[in-house]
């Protein structure tokens, strides 16, 4: 009954004029970013984060979540038309989407992608609506050892499943964690601050986020005339787009299974939608009666990839809100937004801020309706024609980033920090390191550090026994250590995910 009441309150908040306006604005912006190859959801949410300074926490989160969710929709359009995923999570959509475009069936592919995305996204938010309370209830029983390991898992899993050298990803994560420990310790000591007052509260996440995700990307773009140079072979046919809406229902088992896969992978800290899409695609191909047709324009491939990557957002958001550990890089930015509004994600948030949590989930469900309408418009109208000149995009986004970092504390120090993070993030990307792991580390460091100190204080010299005597801790320890060891041991062999990515 309580849950129903909260849903009702959440729905009422989601249907307020301001919330709907922000949903629409977020969806349109997200869709444009998604349809622009080279711009990721993390980048979009990071650059727009400062805009939410003056909003209520709920409205700010509704706006950013709408951007986050709609980027995946928009990204499928360019994946299908240009063979260039608008966002990394749409890479699996290229595999069958582009061959369909070459066959003159792009409208069918876009329609299928939109409707699969809606089903995957809606299902995942419904599961989130019903399940977040249960996850938070379980999380309330977590001791410091479990919370410590979940925080570490956020970085370690990125190394285990990430695309690239696990050593470099792990080094990036460890370095991020180390930077994140700068500031005042729970014991009252100033740690590695060099007596700089701006570092007393720790390294601020927002400038690091904007630097690593936006500035580094702008540096990458500099030197190119356009974000992407490609010829669109689109087929503008609204009838075919709408007609293809029925396709996921013809592959009902695929859409349900893929949504489940996406949701579960989304729940794993740091695993992300790209992995969800490829895992689901790979599973669907294996279970298919005609696996050879995949990669040549099989509709099931699009259904699997798009329902999984959209379902992932619900799972990732659930982990972020209920456990306080980001389920993906973009939700790490959302976690930064929560912190910026003075809220601490975790099981307590779900219980103490029920109107906010359920309002956000209801808004995510309601926004799916807008997304269909806007995605059809994007699919029909833009058709991946967003070849934005970089010399327009760079000054615009840079000014936004500049003031966004400054606005946090009205401090030039934060702008310097953003520029430093941007330059370092760029070099990291250039040489195969992971700026995402670095950011994840900066966000998670204080959680891990505080919990470890709590363990020292509670259990004295026997603190380490907590990892082995509590079943959940032991399981998490095995997952973290096992995942890393497995990846390091097998680093010479490319994973199926990497092969598919190629």
């Amino acid at each position, binding site marked *: 009954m309580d849950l129903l009441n909260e849903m009702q309150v959440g729905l009422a908040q989601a249907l307020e004029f301001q919330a709907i306006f922000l949903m629409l604005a977020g969806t349109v912006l997200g869709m444009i970013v998604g349809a622009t190859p080279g711009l990721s959801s993390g980048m979009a949410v990071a650059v727009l984060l400062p805009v939410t300074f003056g909003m209520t926490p709920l409205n700010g989160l509704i706006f950013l979540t709408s951007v986050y969710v709609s980027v995946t929709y928009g990204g499928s359009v360019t994946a299908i038309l240009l063979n260039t995923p608008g966002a990394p999570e749409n890479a699996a959509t290229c595999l069958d989407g582009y061959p369909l475009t070459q066959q003159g069936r792009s409208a069918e592919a876009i329609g299928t992608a939109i409707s699969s995305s809606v089903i995957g996204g809606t299902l995942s938010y419904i599961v989130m609506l019903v399940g977040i309370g249960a996850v938070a209830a379980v999380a309330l029983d977590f001791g410091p050892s479990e919370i410590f390991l979940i925080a570490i898992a956020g970085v370690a899993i990125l190394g285990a499943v990430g695309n690239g050298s696990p050593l470099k990803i792990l080094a990036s994560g460890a370095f991020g964690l180390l930077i994140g420990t700068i500031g005042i310790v729970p014991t009252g000591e100033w740690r590695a601050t060099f007596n700089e007052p701006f570092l007393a509260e720790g390294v601020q996440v927002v400038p690091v986020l904007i630097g690593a995700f936006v500035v580094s990307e702008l540096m990458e773009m500099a030197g190119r005339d356009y974000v992407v140079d490609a010829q669109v072979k689109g087929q503008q046919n609204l009838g075919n787009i709408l007609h293809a809406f029925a396709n996921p229902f013809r592959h009902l088992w695929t859409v349900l299974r893929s949504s489940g896969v996406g949701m579960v992978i989304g729940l794993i800290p740091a695993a992300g939608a790209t992995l969800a899409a490829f895992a689901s695609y790979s599973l669907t191909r294996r279970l298919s009666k005609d696996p050879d047709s995949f990669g040549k324009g099989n509709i099931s491939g699009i259904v699997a990839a798009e329902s999984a990557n959209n379902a992932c957002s619900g799972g990732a958001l659930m982990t972020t809100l209920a456990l306080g550990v980001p389920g993906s890089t973009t939700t790490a930015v959302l976690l930064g937004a929560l912190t910026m509004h003075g809220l601490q994600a975790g099981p307590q948030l779900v219980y103490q801020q029920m109107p906010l949590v359920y309002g956000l989930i209801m808004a995510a469900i309601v926004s799916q309706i807008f997304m269909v309408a806007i995605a059809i418009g994007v699919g029909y109208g833009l058709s991946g024609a967003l070849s934005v000149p970089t010399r327009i995009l760079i000054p615009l986004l840079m000014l936004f980033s500049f003031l966004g970092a400054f606005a946090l504390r009205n401090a030039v120090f934060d702008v310097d920090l953003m520029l430093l993070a941007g330059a370092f993030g760029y070099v990291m990307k250039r040489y195969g390191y992971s700026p995402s792991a670095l950011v994840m580390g900066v966000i998670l460091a204080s959680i891990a*550090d505080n919990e470890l100190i709590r363990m*020292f204080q509670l259990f004295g010299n026997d603190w380490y026994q907590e990892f082995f005597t509590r079943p959940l801790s032991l399981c998490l320890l095995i997952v973290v250590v096992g995942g890393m060891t497995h990846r390091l041991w097998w680093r010479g062999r490319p994973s199926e995910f990497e092969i598919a990515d190629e």
Partner: protein
Amino acid sequence: MPTGQRMDFGKLAGEMIVPAVMLISTALYWSDAAHLSFFAKAFPLALTVVLVLCVGGILIQICRSCRVPETTDGAGETRTAPDAPGWSLKTALQKAMVVVLPAVLLFFWDGIGGLLTLWLYATVILALLGERRRLVLLLLPIGTALGTYLLFHIVLYVRIPDGLLSIGF
């Protein structure tokens, strides 16, 4: 051959940037944190061990890759790794200016004011990125600087210094 050696050295130097920054930053970190209590040092210490081990592993990988002899194609031209940086000086300058220019302009932030700094940055970066149309060079920086300034100053109440603009008002 000398060209090949230079490419190797360039790539090697590039590969060393991130590990070097990580190690130097860690050393700086400990120069300030070494005197802290065990509670405050335990987690960073564990992270430092992991980081140093990872960087050690990465350096071994870099050394191994250096030993692999370079292959040449039929025409005798040296092949370089596909990810080897191959920018022109102009591109490198453009990339650097994206972050160096705002860093320099920050020194004048309070003196000339926020709006003028933003306008100056937008104009210079636009010109550096190759925009030659006078109208765009004139209007776009004014539009973007004014737009973002109004959004942050008026809508979001961010305190941006007026600088030179305060003289006239």
